[in-house]
């Protein structure tokens, strides 16, 4: 359950950053991304996927959230 900072990069894309793992990747897909909620399965540009219970209303970025790794 890594603690992840999600922030926007210069192009407005969401970045997934785990300091301890030296991981910083663009989020390429979010399962649920609507005005009501944000979350579910999240795919990164390197192909890894993580899961977070959908948050409603959607969080404002940057923020730190806890994700689960999906194998």
């Amino acid at each position, binding site marked *: 359950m890594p603690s992840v*900072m999600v*922030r926007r990069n210069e192009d407005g894309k969401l970045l997934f*950053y785990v*300091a301890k793992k*030296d991981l*910083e990747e663009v989020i390429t897909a979010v399962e649920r991304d609507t005005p009501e909620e944000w979350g579910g399965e999240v795919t990164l540009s*390197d192909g890894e996927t993580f899961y977070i219970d959908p948050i409603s209303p959607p969080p404002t970025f*940057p*923020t*730190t959230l806890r994700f689960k790794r999906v194998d």
Partner: protein
Amino acid sequence: MAALTREETQNLIAEVLAIYPEKAKKDRAKHLMVNDRSLETAKKCITSNRKAVPGVMTIRGCAYAGSRGVCWGPIKDMIHISHGPVGCGMYSTMGRRHYMNGTTGADIFGTINVTSDFQERDIVFGGDKKLKAIIDELEKLFPLVKGYTIQSECPIGLIGDDIESVAKVKGAEIGKTIVPVRCEGFRGVSQSLGHHIANDSIRDWVLPTLDGDDSFETTPYDVNILADYNIGGDIWPSRMLLEEIGLRVISQVPGDGTLIEMQRSTKAKLNLLHCYRSMNYVSRHMEEKYGIPWMEYNLFGPTKIEASLRAIAERFDDQIKEGVERVLAKYKPQWQAVVDKYRPRLEGKKVMLYVGGLRPRHIIGAYEDLGMEVVGTGYEFAHNDDYDRTIKEMGDATLIYDDVTAYELDEFVKRLKPDLIGSGIKEKYQFQKMGFPFRQMHSWDYSGPYHGYDGFAIFARDMDMTLNNPCWKEIKAPWQRAAAPASVAA
């Protein structure tokens, strides 16, 4: 064009590694790569931030060095106590040349080294009492000091002293900021974790102090300069440029900086991050908690200055944009004269670098402005993201090395035969004796500043002075010179 083709560079790596035992070879191979500019990330090609292979000569430091020496050291109106045995304090002797303005003992304390000088009895009975006594004593000796940091050396973590509680109790008693930093040297694989720990201590013990206090008057143009350490005075020309384009620098953290600047940094509109590696953590935190965006910038050499100032202006209104154009026009004749003078003397020369947090990529532009080419570069303690940022700066098929060992660097230099090497004090004399012109690129070799237009002129002069020094011709004994002219019989 690189000195070697991709294949040749790959062969070079293989040849150099051949001497290692199987396991070490496998491990070290992951830390060396041939650059490929088409890559988006370096992750697949180079491994970094790993423990050095036992038995090889690495030139890394420890977490304590990263916190005491790098991140906290330049904060000038606090006393940084090296808590533990006396030896580690070597990292605080200002050999790094982070300059500070002021009068020692009155408003700056950077030149004063304080250690708790642990003895056997402190290890056995704990050093908390001693720490309290030290703070009392310092309060008497230097009543004007604004605060303290407690920089833990290895034994503190091993014996489990509670420096946090000392910091809280004493801080309340004397009414000053005391920051406990858990930067014991055994944490992490290099000084890099020390930076992170120092950042976390700033986040927890310094930044929140002005939360809810809006008495500081702000303007829309307030910025912080983060992670410029003022080596040889670097931050001063940087600050002058930023002010000239119309920004207001409200804090310098930590170069030539103070505690109150650090605290006020939460009131800025933008964080300008110079060394990404050492202070990106606190920048990210300030973005999340205070909504202050951050951006990296680079003030080495006119090309990068121009790009950086324009990028900074993008974050502000037309007034700043006009300011940038005005400044660029104003300084063009100044730097053009530098280029005209030195480029003919340096054109086409090859450089190899091996430095710390940001210079292996940041100074490439300055060399290119002088017509020089960087054929090999590498970091002591970088992480993946640093290499991601390096790939695009370096030419194709150039060599990139992570935590390079003394042996590997020697061999690479022998084969690539650069005209100039830029690295640290540990490499300096070895390469000079091998006959290679060398600049110490951590402390600017007793020179500097190198930032901004003023710094660029000094940079160019220094490189020329070193590279074209006639002494390099005299390194070989006369009878060893190949094409020595036949001596005239007397």
